[in-house]
């Protein structure tokens, strides 16, 4: 839960970061694309043949091949959802490449990664971040992970951090035991699609009692036009362990659409804690339709920190099922919707055991006709007595043509609970602007300051490096938005 700012007396130290000069826009910084020297690129469209081909390429065991084909049937049988956003009707499943292989295998040294691809990740600053502050890195390019490395010490302690394809080969029992146990293949149409054509993603296992102090990071990059990226991630934190996983994502700016549809399953065993942080910054031609769900067992904690800046449409509602007594779930999210964007983000928490607690803290910003929605579900089941939950949704509108909606659903089947819900909508206040301007700050800077302040309670939950990046991204989004 966000706490009031610390009064450490360490005056000023933390302030340098947000004054970083901005000199690039998305297209220059992330919107570039490489030439395609691919080993394989599937033709557009989805069918049994493509699914079989993916499984064959990966030399998968029979059970996985069967799982995929079954999921394909689910996908084909299900109608496109009609809730969420009218933009969803624009997704054309026949106009997507479902599998693109850029590299032989996942490498453990950047030197072995194909030159073009390595350059891309260099440009995105991934190897540098790895050296500076990460315990491990996975880098996915198109359909597959091209680089994966984890700190040696952690490996010695039994931590597994690898791409999902490798995990299926090297840890088949573990993968089979947990795969699709949190999100079944027929959960929803997009989860079914992912289950049929999944490729890449991370597999993380943290043994009992091990605390991974520095974050593990995965970076997802789309390069091709009309690409579909379908990574699959499982994080399994064994008893009393701790891990913080961070993901980032970008894509080139194309005029036609791409699709990103991940499935992420988290399992926090008794007393474990998982924090999963996302800084989503897809280009504005990407449909981002993701299913994320976690199970928290007795005394476990799961936290989703979810920042959605880019994409054309994002529909994502990270969920936590509190299955054991005193489990705790938390969803902190920021959504920023600009021109032509719809961020339909939210959270789902299910209290299924006594004395469980949860917080949902959602902040959204809409500008230039952008639309953001909070869609949340809080459920307290019979027998989950003594549960406590607090839901706070704050929306900030920067102009009159933008829009925000809040759909908080609360279902409670138990009497002895303590549930709080607050929602606010505000506009960047004339009084706030005047106050700042009357002291000498110009209007554009003043508006940026107000927006940065608005998201500060969540940004300060991010690791420092990501907080800096987040403030930069927000400032980028704010450029030229006033006056």
């Amino acid at each position, binding site marked *: 839960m966000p706490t009031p*700012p610390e009064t450490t007396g360490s005056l000023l130290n933390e302030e340098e970061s947000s004054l970083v000069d901005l000199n690039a826009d998305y297209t220059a910084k992330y919107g570039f694309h490489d030439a395609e020297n691919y080993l394989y690129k599937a033709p557009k469209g989805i069918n049994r043949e493509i699914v079989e081909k993916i499984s064959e390429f990966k030399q998968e065991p029979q059970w996985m091949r069967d799982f995929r084909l079954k999921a394909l049937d689910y996908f084909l049988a299900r109608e496109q959802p009609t809730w969420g956003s009218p933009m969803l009707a624009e997704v054309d499943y026949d106009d997507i490449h479902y599998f693109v292989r850029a590299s032989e295998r996942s490498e453990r040294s950047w030197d072995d990664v194909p030159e073009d691809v390595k350059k891309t990740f260099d440009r995105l600053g991934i190897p540098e971040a790895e050296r500076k502050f990460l315990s491990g890195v996975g880098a996915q390019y198109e359909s597959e992970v091209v680089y994966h490395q984890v700190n040696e010490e952690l490996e010695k302690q039994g931590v597994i951090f690898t791409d999902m394809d490798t995990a299926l080969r090297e840890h088949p029992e573990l993968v089979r035991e947990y795969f699709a146990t949190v999100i079944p293949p027929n959960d929803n149409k997009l989860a079914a699609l992912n289950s049929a054509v999944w490729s890449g993603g991370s597999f993380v296992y943290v043994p009992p009692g091990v605390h991974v102090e520095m974050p593990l990071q995965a970076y997802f990059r789309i390069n091709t036009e009309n690409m579909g990226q379908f990574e699959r991630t499982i994080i399994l934190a064994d008893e009393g362990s701790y891990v913080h996983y961070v993901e980032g994502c970008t894509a080139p700016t194309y005029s036609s659409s791409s699709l990103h549809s991940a499935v992420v399953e988290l399992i926090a065993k008794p007393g474990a804690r998982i924090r999963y942080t996302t800084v989503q910054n897809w280009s504005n031609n990407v449909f981002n339709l993701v299913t994320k769900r976690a199970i928290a067992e007795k005394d476990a904690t799961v936290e989703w920190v979810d920042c959605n800046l880019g994409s054309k449409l994002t529909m994502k509602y990270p969920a936590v099922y509190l299955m054991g007594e005193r489990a705790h779930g938390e969803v902190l999210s920021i959504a920023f919707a600009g021109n032509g964007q719809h961020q339909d983000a939210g959270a789902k928490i299910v209290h299924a055991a006594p004395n469980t607690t949860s917080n949902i803290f959602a902040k959204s910003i809409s500008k230039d006709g952008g639309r953001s929605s909070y869609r949340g579900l809080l459920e307290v089941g019979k027998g989950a007595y003594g549960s406590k939950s607090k839901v706070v949704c704050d929306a900030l509108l920067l102009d009159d043509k933008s829009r925000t909606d809040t759909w908080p659903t609360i279902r409670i089947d138990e009497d002895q609970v303590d549930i709080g819900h607050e929602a606010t909508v505000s506009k960047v206040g004339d009084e706030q602007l*005047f106050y700042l*301007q009357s*002291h*000498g700050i110009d209007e554009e800077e003043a508006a940026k300051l107000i927006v*940065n302040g608005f998201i500060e309670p969540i940004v300060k939950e991010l690791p420092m490096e990501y907080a800096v990046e987040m403030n930069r991204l927000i400032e980028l989004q704010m450029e030229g938005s006033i006056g």
Partner: protein
Amino acid sequence: MADLEIKNLHARVADGEKQILKGLNLTVNRGEIHALMGPNGSGKSTLANVIMGNPQLEVTEGQILWKGEDITELDPDVRARKGLFMAFQYPVAIPGVTIVKYLRMVLNAHREERGESEIKLKDFRQLVQGEMERVNVPKEFGSRYLNDGFSGGEKKRLEMLQLALQRPEVAILDETDSGLDVDALNIVSQAVNAVKAESELGALIITHYQRILHLIKPDRVSILVDGRIVKEGGPELVEQIETEGYKAIRAEAEALGADVSTVA
């Protein structure tokens, strides 16, 4: 030429019907304390906000001159960087923005205007800590959010901290004394007097009460009734209002055509 000169100013709430200022004339010079008193609803806060350029108010006639230059249509931030300052009656909260981050932005905006480079972190820290001590703002406040969750008195002290840091040429204090206890009032007064002594501050002190004018000695006193200045004088005018109330100037106001129904 006065540093700040208000000429025949007429103003109303933007898009509103009712005229609040009705031909107001006033000057404030550097190094001078000018007190502005008047009954409730006479337009005191409106005047302060119009001088600072609050877009919620609209000037329909007349001018605001800064050293002879017409600034009536300038944005508030431009006025501020020229050396005008307003201490708010109700400082506005900016959640999530720490006081030190804000102060540094403000200082750098003013430095940029003067063609100076950004202030060094070390110099900034020294400067802010020094001024914080003077206006009795605890150091820990620096990492709290601007005007968010502070008491009325604390907020006023933060306004004085900004006065001391910005070093304006002319400051308008919009009922800075309202709601302050004796100790807080002393701190505020000391800050104004100190800045005045050090950098030849001119101030327009808008107030209901006399007590702040015992601590900051005015050179001139103007009485505002129904949107115009109905009487000007020296400090003795404060004493007169104190003993007789605004009815002392009722006849003069009426003679000038002011609606005196607000004057008891």
